[in-house]
């Protein structure tokens, strides 16, 4: 494993996952946003439901928007949320 990271969820992603946030320790091969999403999806249940359409999922690492290739690691704050609708 690569160490614990903080996951946070918003809007309907939060509702589907069933929690606002958690601390997780993914396996060592999970070093990018894309790999993290695939691993989470594989956990089944609310994760699979929340992540079934990845085109509707936006990611921020340490509060900055991040694409699938972006690195993630220990102590990062990784946020998953739908496209924003403020303003």
């Amino acid at each position: 494993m690569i160490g614990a990271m903080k996951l946070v969820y918003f809007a309907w992603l939060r509702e589907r996952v069933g929690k606002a946030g958690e601390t997780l320790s993914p396996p060592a091969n999970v070093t990018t946003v894309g790999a993290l999403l695939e691993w989470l999806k594989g956990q089944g249940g609310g994760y699979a439901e929340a992540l079934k359409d990845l085109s509707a999922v936006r990611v921020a690492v340490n509060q900055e928007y991040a694409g699938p290739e972006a690195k993630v690691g220990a102590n990062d704050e990784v946020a998953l949320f739908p496209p924003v609708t403020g303003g």
Partner: protein
Amino acid sequence: MIKVQTEDFDVGVELKALMARAQGVGGIVTFTGVVREWSGNQQLAAMTLEHYPGMTERQLADIEAEAVRRWPIEASLIIHRYGRLEPGANIVLVITASAHRQAAFEANEFLVDWLKTKAPFWKLEAGPAGQSWVEAKATDDQAADRWKVTSGPAKRRA
């Protein structure tokens, strides 16, 4: 200046405060976004705005800095509310003040367009049919995309 808050705001009060700290201003543009009573054919009882504390402030500060970099803005303000809001309630306020009216207009539209596509807020509407999350609009992405230039002021008026 940016503010993320649950409290309401008063455009007149904010405008006066901004003018007090600005110099050389000739034109001031404000945009106020309010909760609409109707969403499609559903009459809204209320709307709840969720946001991502920390990232919201960071995004708003970045967007404001970008506007100040691209236009000759003397003073600006972004206020975005969150929490439960009823129809007619204020949601967002953007003020831009410049020596030149076109800069004030363009910077204001730029900020509003980016708020719609970058600021981490999500709207949950409550109506007769229950609650539902508002879906992002492709037209908002298009509106924001028109400001994508690599340097200098936007050239949308060729």
